[in-house]
């Protein structure tokens, strides 16, 4: 899952990125409103964390611009301003949730998970298929009760496929959601990750649709 973090405070941005990365997310950081608006308009993020008080262009203006261009990526606004009016302004402008500074990092993680779940219309934070269980709260994967050891990028691929279950996901789409903006986006490496996942979790979980992509089919 790829996240845009628009936060001008370097130390805070680094802390958030570090925590989210450790949870298997891919995080791009924008330092000002102009950069945030550009990235939000050009990259396919799964979630955007948007600080309202950004330099150059404030977060509300950026958010309104995205929504006016039909960019419906879920947005969590961060605000250090004191007062409900600003939060309501943000929600009015199309934000999906808000968090006020200072906040507890686990709460931010929980909000992000909830937003991703809502986006994929998945009520349960735990995915399960044929004895394979993926818990999105801690990114733990078990196979018939035994923990499976996955790398961060394998978790990222699995997480994206589970969150978009029953939907065909192309290699390009997968690479767009598991690599950072300036990362090496070789879509061929996706095939390598898929193979590794099949070895660790079995062949039945991820199905290949030749020439088009991959899908995890879950009972609806």
């Amino acid at each position: 899952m790829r996240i845009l973090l628009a936060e001008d405070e370097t130390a805070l941005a680094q802390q958030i990125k570090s925590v989210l990365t450790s949870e298997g997310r891919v995080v791009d950081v924008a330092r000002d409103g102009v950069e945030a608006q550009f990235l939000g308009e050009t990259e396919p993020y799964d979630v955007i964390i948007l600080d309202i008080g950004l330099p150059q262009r404030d977060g509300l203006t950026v958010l309104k611009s995205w929504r006016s261009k039909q960019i419906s990526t879920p947005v969590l606004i961060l605000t250090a301003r004191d007062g409900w009016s600003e939060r309501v302004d943000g929600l009015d402008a199309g934000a999906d949730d808000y968090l006020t500074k200072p906040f507890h990092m686990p709460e931010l993680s929980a909000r992000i998970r909830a937003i991703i779940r809502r986006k994929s219309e998945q009520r349960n934070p735990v995915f399960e298929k044929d004895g394979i269980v993926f818990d999105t709260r801690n990114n733990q994967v078990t196979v018939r009760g035994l923990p499976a050891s996955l790398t961060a990028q394998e978790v990222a691929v699995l997480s994206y496929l589970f969150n978009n279950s029953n939907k065909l996901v192309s290699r390009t789409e997968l690479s767009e959601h598991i690599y950072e903006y300036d990362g090496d986006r070789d879509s061929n490496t996706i095939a390598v990750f898929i193979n590794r996942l099949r070895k660790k979790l079995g062949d039945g979980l991820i199905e290949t649709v030749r020439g088009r992509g991959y899908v995890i089919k879950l009972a609806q």
Partner: protein
Amino acid sequence: MISLRARAITGGVIWAIFTIIIGVFGLASYVDRLAQERFDELLVTRHTQAVISVAKSAMTQNSIASGIGEASYRRPFSGQYWQVIAPDGEVFVSESLVDARLPRPGPNTGKISIANFVGETDEQLRRIEEWLTLEDGSIWHVQVASSLSSLLQDRNQLRGNLLLAFGLIAILGIIGAFLQASTTLRPLNDLRREVLSRWDKEGGLDVAGYPVEVAPLVNDINTLLDRNREIITRSRRQAADLAHAVKTPSAIVRNELEALQRNGQPVDQSIAALNRLDAQLNRSFARIRADGGSSSINTYTDLDISLGRMSKAFTSLAGNLGKVLISDISSNLRVRMDRTDFEEVIGNLLDNALKWSATEIRITARDEQDHVAIIIEDDGPGIPEADRKTAMMSGQRLDTSQPGTGLGLAIATDVAYAYGGEVTLGTSDRLGGLKVTIRLKTSGF
């Protein structure tokens, strides 16, 4: 301090009474003198008539009486009398005197003398007497008297009429004083009304619409209104900037401390101290805002707009949590409160309700004459009666199982009180959880 209206009316009434008293005395005295002069003129005419009659007569009683020849001299005690004393001492009198006589003659000074006297029937009379020397050298005494009763009666009637007229003038004067006071003070009343209305509206007062005497005051008020707005806006901006400047570093410190805590470092006390610091800052920022808000000028909130957008935002937040928010808001409600502060109160209370409710929250707003009641209910565990007072105090968290500072209720209460409103806690009959009722003054404009 006595009001301007009372001063103007009292001054007007005192001046009217003073003028009327002087007028009544002056006019009455003039009228008395005029009546007296007319009476004397008539008496002199009667006397002249008697003198002519004496001079022309054949010196007999009959001839004098027929010479004067007026009916009132014949009617007994008619109030009109004459008396002539011949040189030989014989006394001729009008029939009206019957057997009475006019006073004895005074000494012969060669002039007419006029004097008042009391007649034999205790009648107030005025007489003219004269020693008359005819061509033949004979000396006669001619005296004419008239009753003063008619004069007194006329005078009293005239005085009565005067008093009545001046009484009417006094009433008109007092009414005039009232009218003048309200006409003179109307610009000040307009000013008061307009200042009150500007409480709710943008812009200053129209200086050109006031008399020149009041215009400088209107200018001063405009300056004060502008300065007040500036101060409030500046203090709010400073508070917001300060919050922004403090909270981001606070978030960084918190994240560092929590990371250390997760790694088993003993940082519990530092985290607790940071919690206290954040709570205190939140409370202080809310108080700065409330203090500025309660004295601000353009302070009204249209509930259709504000509660509308808050309901929409919280409906979405409730939906995120699988809960529902039901709004029942009467239209066209307005409260005397700044919109930002109003949203702060409602935001904190709805946030609490969202946090503690199981599945449902209700927000109701209705008109209560000079107040608007906003009720927020939920189906959560509620707050026991014994703990309700504590819940409205700063930083009191009754249950630490949910994240938060425990400031929501306290901030909402502080801000509502700063505007003369009130917040009460109870149990929702409908949903079973907490019921928070906020009463705020309605905006009359």
